[in-house]
């Protein structure tokens, strides 16, 4: 079982869309996949029409294996299940800080269902916190969407610095360009600069697309409704890159 986190310390970069679409791509490639929504807003669940979990509250996520397992819901697609979030997830840091081994709690929780899945994808909230440190410790790879702008460059630098300072493996980080508009000069320039600086950047990128925006209307992964020639294959291709880097067989 491999754990792939989708994380960004900046909001609005297409993180949930990435989690949902990568999870779908993983499932379609035949991997038994669990998408675990750690973001209290529960957007991943929304895209799959799965209602927030009512029983997986407060400390239960980390403490109560049975409830964690019970909270898993099948999506409408083969090989793809989801743990929906709820608003109590916003207090994860408070619970975690009160627990022993507060940085390896997530790993313990996921281990309980590991045997059922080949891949677990974590949709993480956008901040640096005890929860995100759990994520950095647990995940085999951390996929980071980056909009090619100056500000994004700064946040990516910050993330690398944080990994450095806290002794997390930097090779886990797999940044990729998100919401790319090649018609914008700034995007093109930023991409060139960043590619020079971060060799680990994924080759495939996700262009800005109204089709992705329409996920909220369709409430389904973009590949299920988008034109194959435009957005349909973007995530499948990116998933292949990630599989290769993360050693997913």
């Amino acid at each position, binding site marked *: 079982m491999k754990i792939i986190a989708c994380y960004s310390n900046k909001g609005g970069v297409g993180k949930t869309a990435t989690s949902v679409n990568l999870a779908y791509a993983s499932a379609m490639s035949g991997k038994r996949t669990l998408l675990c929504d750690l973001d209290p807003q529960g957007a991943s669940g929304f895209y799959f029409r799965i209602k927030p979990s009512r029983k997986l509250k407060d400390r239960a996520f980390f403490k109560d294996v049975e409830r964690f397992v019970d909270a898993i*819901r*099948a999506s409408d697609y083969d090989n793809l299940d989801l743990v929906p979030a709820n608003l109590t997830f916003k207090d994860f840091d408070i619970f975690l800080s009160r627990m022993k081994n507060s940085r390896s709690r997530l790993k313990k929780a996921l281990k309980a269902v590991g045997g059922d899945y080949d891949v677990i994808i974590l949709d993480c909230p956008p901040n640096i916190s005890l929860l995100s440190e759990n994520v950095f410790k647990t995940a085999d790879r951390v996929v980071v969407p980056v909009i090619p702008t100056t500000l994004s460059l700064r946040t990516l630098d910050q993330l690398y610095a944080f990994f450095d300072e806290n002794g997390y493996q930097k090779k886990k980080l797999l940044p990729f360009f998100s919401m790319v508009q090649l018609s914008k000069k700034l995007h093109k320039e930023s991409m060139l600069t960043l590619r020079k600086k971060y060799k680990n950047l994924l080759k495939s990128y996700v262009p800005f697309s109204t089709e992705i925006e329409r996920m909220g209307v369709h*409430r389904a992964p973009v590949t299920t409704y988008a034109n194959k020639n435009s957005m349909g294959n973007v995530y499948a291709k990116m998933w292949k890159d990630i599989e290769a880097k993360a050693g997913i067989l």
Partner: protein
Amino acid sequence: MGPFVYIVPSALKTKKLNTSLAGIPDYTIRDEKGERVEGVILDTFDNILLKRRLLLFGLEGGLVVLDLKEGCFVEQEIEGAWRFSSDLPAGPVAELLADVSPLRAFLTVAKVKIRQTKGVLLDDEGKTRARYTNLTVNHADSSISFGVVTSMRGYQRAFEDLIDIMGQAGAIALDNGSEIYRLLAIKRYNYTNKPELHLDADAVASETAARIISAFMLVARANESGVIGDYDTEFLHDYRVSFRKVRSVLSLFKGVYDGEITRQLKSEFSAIMQGTNRLRDLDVYLMEKDHYFTMVPEPSLAGLTLLFAYLANERKKELKKVKKILQSKAYERQVDSLNKLFMDSANLSLGPKGKLPSKLLASKLVLKRYSQVCRIAGTINRSTRDEVVHELRISCKKLRYLMEFFTPLYDQDGVRQIIKTLKVLQDNLGRFNDYSVQQTFLRQILDHELGSFKGDEMQLTEAIGALTAMLYSMQKKERTQVVKNFIHFNSEETRLLFKELFQKKGEA
């Protein structure tokens, strides 16, 4: 919870399902109806799929299997005709049928019309919470639906709700394919080559013998239409084995019927079987074709191709002859009158053992045969003549038949255990014999049929030479196994078991 397999004794209507939903406002049922298409239900003559709780539907361009044990449908697209499980290209249905004997053809059980529907139970947000796949099948004037409701992780309640809703539309649990046949008014002959014999330990031997003979004549006759239709080689095989068993009863039960009558009947049954000898020999050869091609060296392959083309052609001719016999009035009359003869043992004049109690006679016969097997096997070593090995084979076969016939009179598990160990030795001896028969068969072609290969005599002779050499060495190899297999069969445990099962208490 596992999937729910259901049957509705009529066509399942989505409208009806949605009406039943009235009490649960958050749900809707939506379905995608497939086209109504022509199809067939398929199974082997011995209903292997029905026994395994599988139902196979052949549709234009594809196969669908309802697996009642696992509660799922398995589908595979196929192109072109197929008859045996080994003909199927790799795929999920092929995998499911992989261990069905490659010798048994799949035949049409019934022509039907089929409509496949895939349905879902949706919640108020349009999320799928449970699914079902339904087949509505029409045959003659009957129409039924059956299918599988599957649960989705985390939505157990919805699964149970959907089962309830289906229940309101008339669905009940289905665990047996025969129910589908029954509701579709499909009549299916329950064929087995091992008929269940109802024997009475105290009944007189003549009656028991007649009962066993009648049962096997019925098996033999059930195969006639399959031999004529040439669906697969098992029909002829079962036909012959059954008649051989009939004849065996007569010779094993020597003294039960009048001596002269026994002799006459035996020769009559032998004659019936003889008419099919050559066809069976050819079948065995042609079945092994691929194997032979891997056995001979490259230079002999051209000759082998000629040989097999000849054998295939011979088989055609031979089949014609057999068909003619089986379809003849004379055959019909003969078998009918034999059948009638054994319906009532009073039709036959008895011999000195005719009135012996069956179990007493059976025990004596089994023990006598067993000691004969042991005696012959005891004399076999490296220099023993092949004839003695053949004698052992025939003796083992008779012992096996005896035990099989009389299994119902004894502790069945014990008898089956003995038969199981005996079978290893018999298979060994059987192969020894097959290789020998095949060499003789080849020699006959060389001696008498070379004229059919004008201009190719050299090639053919070379191929037959290579093949004979291989068969000879294989026969030798089997031969070296006989002593080892006999020792394995005749263990202390088997000996005790024989004693315990067949020796009267108090008898040493």
